[in-house]
């Protein structure tokens, strides 16, 4: 940045970027988030296999066991639910469906929405108009009705739940992608690619998508929490995930009648949703910068402070 040398090879560019992990370690909040998310993913993957039995072990006469006691084993440390099942084990097992639904929904919605948005942004006006009108229709189609239609016609199941939630989220990705594409396609490096003779496919996938992707990633992480909450709301209304499947959202909804008598039934799963959402948000903020070669340097020498969006370099002249 202070390059004024007239030598043939001016101002050596900075040392190569340190590996991502080292960069993550430097941002403690992001690192903690990553660890939490990793734990949740591990729980989601291994939970049902390891603790499935335990999580379904009912004991009607020992229901609503109060938390913070090891008297009945570690699995009851967070208390027992209304059928006497250990909360901790259930929370771990529920991570599976929760993450599956949230990730499945976000992935499906982002994929379809981004694809449609790319087409709508890149293609001509007519295609774009048709896609946008369709998005409008989906947008104003009440998700509750959609949930009832799908549940009634296809039955309650996790894939169907994903279908319902994904359809309602598609327009978000579609509109964002389209707006970004409209802007990015006018950028100079896209024109440079056109001049070199790049095909539409190359321009979309090599030049436009990588620029749009971080924005989508940000929306997706925010959406992840939103989907968990939407799923929970549907459960509350009785048109969401149904037992024997369990998700955190369902656990919160089911714990609702006990809020005044056994707070832990709804509190722990609710807390997990909040923690997951927070961790995702923090990590996505970090990732947005880490994955951008333009901004990565901000993380390279940083110790603790979270990344501010303000450039910290002397301006021109």
């Amino acid at each position, binding site marked *: 940045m202070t390059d004024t040398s007239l030598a043939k090879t001016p101002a050596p560019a900075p040392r190569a970027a340190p590996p991502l992990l080292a960069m993550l370690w430097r941002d403690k909040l992001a690192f903690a988030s990553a660890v939490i998310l990793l734990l949740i993913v591990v729980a989601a993957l291994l939970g049902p296999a390891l603790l499935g039995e335990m999580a379904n072990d009912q004991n009607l006469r020992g229901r609503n066991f109060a938390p913070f006691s090891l008297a009945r084993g570690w699995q009851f440390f967070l208390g027992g639910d209304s059928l006497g099942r250990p909360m901790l084990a259930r929370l771990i097992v529920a991570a599976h469906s929760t993450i599956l639904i949230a990730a499945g929904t976000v992935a499906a919605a982002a994929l379809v929405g981004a694809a449609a948005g790319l087409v709508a942004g890149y293609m001509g006006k007519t295609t774009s108009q048709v896609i946008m009108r*369709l998005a*409008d*229709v989906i947008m104003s189609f009440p998700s509750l009705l959609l949930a009832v239609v799908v549940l009634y016609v296809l039955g309650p199941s996790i894939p169907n739940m994903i279908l319902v939630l994904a359809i309602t989220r598609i327009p978000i990705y579609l509109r964002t992608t389209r707006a970004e594409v409209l802007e990015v396609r006018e950028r100079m490096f896209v024109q440079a690619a056109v001049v070199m003779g790049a095909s539409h496919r190359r321009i979309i996938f090599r030049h436009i998508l990588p620029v749009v992707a971080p924005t989508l990633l940000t929306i997706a992480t925010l959406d992840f929490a939103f989907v968990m909450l939407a799923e929970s709301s549907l459960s509350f209304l009785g048109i969401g995930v149904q037992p024997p499947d369990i998700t955190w*959202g369902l656990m919160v909804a089911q714990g609702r009648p006990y809020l005044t008598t056994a707070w832990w039934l709804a509190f722990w799963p609710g807390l997990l949703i*909040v923690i997951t959402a*927070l961790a995702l948000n923090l990590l996505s903020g970090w990732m947005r910068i880490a994955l951008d070669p333009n901004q990565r340097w901000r993380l390279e020498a940083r110790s603790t402070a979270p990344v501010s969006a303000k450039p910290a370099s002397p301006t021109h002249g």
Partner: protein
Amino acid sequence: MTKLIGQRAIASLLSLFGLMVLVFFLSRLTGDPAVLFLPIDATEQMKEEFRALHGLDLPIIEQFWRYLLDLLQLDFGDSLRKARPALEVVLEAYAWTLPLALITMAIVVVAAIVLGSLAAFKVGGFFDRLVSIVSLVGASAPDFWIAIVAIVVFSIGLGWVPTSGVGTPLHWVLPIAVLFIRPFGLVVQVVRGSMLGALSAPYVKTARAKGVKNLPLIFVHTLRNGMLPVITVIGDQAAAMLNGAVIVETIFGFPGVGKLMIDSILQRDFNVVLAAIMVTALAIFLMNILIDIAYSLLDPRIRH
């Protein structure tokens, strides 16, 4: 401007028609309202009479044509459950949802702008972090959970506000407060981001070079520019709220359109569902026009 609104009106009308067709046919896939209206022991004859009375025995295409013809005369049909014109039922619910949505959004907008701007002005500071974390936690907690806890704490425990209902202004406090949390969390983040961008814009440097004080610098010079991306998000949030706040309305016994919608869907009161969706779509369309107008008021470059 008029031309633009005209174009949008046509596009919206098309979307609205598509939506209507979709809802009409999809909702009829979800079972027989007769079964739900009548008691479980009702005879087949009673069910048939019910269907005949409401034209549900006709082929679905004919039902659709009839609906369409009625609609052209602005007749949205009668509610199956309430034996009243569906539109009347919906508008009645709107009379509750609209003020709830407007008041909540107004508070959201003011609070998000003030707090978001101040957070952006001292970026990375204590206040900034506090706003970020609080808004994030608030926005990711299940709302029915918050609602019930709020009732337990503020109505029963402290006795400050009534538990539910709509009688006095005090009744509105909890629903608005609960409804406020999520859009606020979102909007305040957008305001912060947008103001962050706007505060580093060159014209802010000019203003500082002019000797403009800090408060006008934020709220006069920067805010109007920073508001542009915020308006879109506010619009989206307001649209969601116009759809009714199902959870909040259900818990607080607030007779709004969200509660009406879920009840009508569960009871297969098709005409009310359709009327509610169309009135909502119309409201959202009008709101989008308001947003366009707000845009052009805020930004002269759009006006010219």
